[in-house]
């Protein structure tokens, strides 16, 4: 799933950096504040671990390979911001050490695997796990599902980035300049192996490691599980912010809305024609136009004006926005529905048996 250089246009890569750089800044800030000295060695070892996990390419029947990432289990153990840093470092190694390239595409890879994946996976985990005890089967299942959903969210984002390339960037005669597959081909091609093999690998990894840690070394999970009882008998410590279905759905919508402009920030998009200050940067959580973006602007508009016509491009963008809105709404609704259902079932069980915590698997 790691994107090498040459598959995405430099414009798309720049857009991805616009999302990734603030995320890195926040992550650095957060992580240094939360755990003072312990963070550096822990993050370093986790980054090394994530790199190793990515090295284990599992063969899949179509002849290519898929791999797990480990972003969700890191998010579960240390919080999603820690996962942002650890997986980003692992991706940097992938780009520089393995020489797979991916220097321009580093931002895009980070957005997919180091930002989207841990947040989505962690959100799903928190939602499903609720307040189940650390060692309960429900919590382990929640981790597995979180891993599964997380890696598929990343695969979907990767597919969308690939898929918008041929529409937006092609030669005058219509030959795609970068990744040649449109959305309708890229999405199934990416999702199929991830819904099956890689998703299963990530689910087993996430659930398995959580089960191992909860059993042997619950102290390692303390940072993210303060309000969770260790075993079924213990009462849950009070306090801590609760993740309700509504909050998770909203979080999902926010993340996806942030990601949607990825394709549109690129030239050919509705914004592409304008100067950078016309971009809705407030929405991206940015208050100043990044210097790099401002610099590229000259490049962009030039490419645009002399290059391919806009007419078909604009329709594609409209369709893209529309499908994005519908897609986000549907998925958010599903998350909300499933979350509410899980909560209700959990509450009912708790109602019938007030002493023991529920153990839904």
């Amino acid at each position: 799933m790691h994107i090498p250089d040459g598959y995405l246009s430099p414009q798309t890569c720049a857009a991805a950096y616009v999302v990734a750089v603030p995320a890195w800044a926040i992550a650095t800030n957060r992580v240094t504040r939360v755990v003072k000295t312990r963070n550096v060695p822990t993050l370093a070892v986790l980054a090394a671990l994530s790199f190793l996990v990515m090295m284990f390419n599992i063969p899949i029947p179509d002849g290519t390979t898929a791999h797990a990432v480990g972003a969700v289990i890191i998010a579960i153990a240390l919080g999603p911001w820690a996962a942002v840093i650890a997986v980003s470092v692992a991706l940097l190694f992938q780009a520089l050490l393995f020489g797979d390239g991916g220097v321009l595409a580093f931002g895009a890879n980070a957005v997919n695997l180091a930002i989207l994946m841990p947040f989505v996976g962690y959100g799903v985990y928190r939602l499903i796990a609720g307040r189940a005890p650390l060692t309960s089967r429900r919590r382990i299942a929640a981790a597995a599902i979180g891993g599964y959903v997380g890696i598929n969210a990343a695969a979907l984002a990767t597919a969308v980035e690939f898929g918008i390339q041929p529409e937006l960037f092609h030669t005058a005669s219509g030959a795609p300049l970068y990744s040649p597959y449109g959305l309708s081909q890229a999405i199934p091609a990416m999702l199929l192996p991830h819904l099956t093999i890689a998703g299963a690998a990530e689910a087993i990894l996430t659930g398995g490691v959580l089960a191992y840690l909860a059993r042997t070394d619950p102290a390692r999970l303390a940072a993210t599980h303060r309000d969770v009882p260790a075993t079924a008998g213990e009462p849950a410590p009070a306090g801590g912010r609760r993740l309700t279905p509504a909050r998770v759905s909203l979080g999902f919508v926010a993340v996806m809305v942030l990601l949607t402009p990825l394709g549109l920030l690129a030239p050919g998009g509705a914004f592409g024609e304008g100067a950078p200050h016309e971009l809705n940067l407030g929405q991206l959580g940015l208050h100043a136009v990044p210097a790099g973006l401002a610099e590229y602007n000259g490049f962009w508009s030039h490419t645009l004006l002399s290059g391919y016509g806009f007419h078909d491009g604009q329709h594609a963008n409209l369709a893209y926005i529309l499908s994005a809105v519908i897609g986000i709404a549907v998925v958010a609704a599903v998350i909300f529905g499933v979350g509410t259902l899980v909560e209700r079932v959990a509450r009912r069980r708790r109602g019938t048996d007030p002493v023991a915590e529920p153990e839904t698997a």
Partner: protein
Amino acid sequence: MDGSEPGADDLVFSCRDLRYAYLGRFPALDGVSLDVHKGEKVALLGPNGCGKSTLLKILDGLIFPDGGTFTAFGQPVTEDNLEDEQFSAGFRSRVGFVFQNSDAQVFSPTVREEIAFGCLQLGLPTGETAARVDDVLAMLGIADLAERAPFQLSGGQKKRVAIASVLVMNPEVLLFDEPTAALDPRTQAWLIELIADLSAAGKTIVLATHDLDALDVIADRCVVFAEDHTVSRVGTPQQVLTDRELLLRANLIHERSRVAL
């Protein structure tokens, strides 16, 4: 508990009734008391898992006892005290620790950076740090390894780097955790000589070891632990080495082994 009780003003470490359990479940120390005086060489002996490494970590202010008191240089060492910038810097520059696992201790990308790490953290200027690093590299005979990465080093070389990274800070007290384990005989002999030299230069040394051969060179006083995480005996190397019963109990010798004295 202690045999020798000279003046209290040359006391480096003073431990009273230390208790420590990992994760609150696995006991490692169960009521250990120990005084270490300036310029002394103390060896901690005992079977695997008796708590030697744990005691050294407490002496270095890395973990804090669940019960009992620990004072260093006349000041109580607690988690709270070490939060204090000045106390922490003072304590860290006066006490150096060579870990049992050099892979954990040698964490920087190159040998040079590894050795410079401590001095830079304690605020020594870059120029002086660089000069000191060069001196230590030369002294330990690893100048040619300076730009290498740790994964390109052998176990013995890594140990030298770990020792260099501690010596460069010129601490008054040196803690060694099984310094001679996994070293070839020549490097072992070199290290034992180094410890003797450091001691002659006035450093205080506390080390954990299973090595009886060099005990009388590297220790003035031995503290023998029992399997129940308590101190079973304190004495000179001579006293300990002649007490066959004690050595057997501490797993330091086997029924069939003979101690050459």
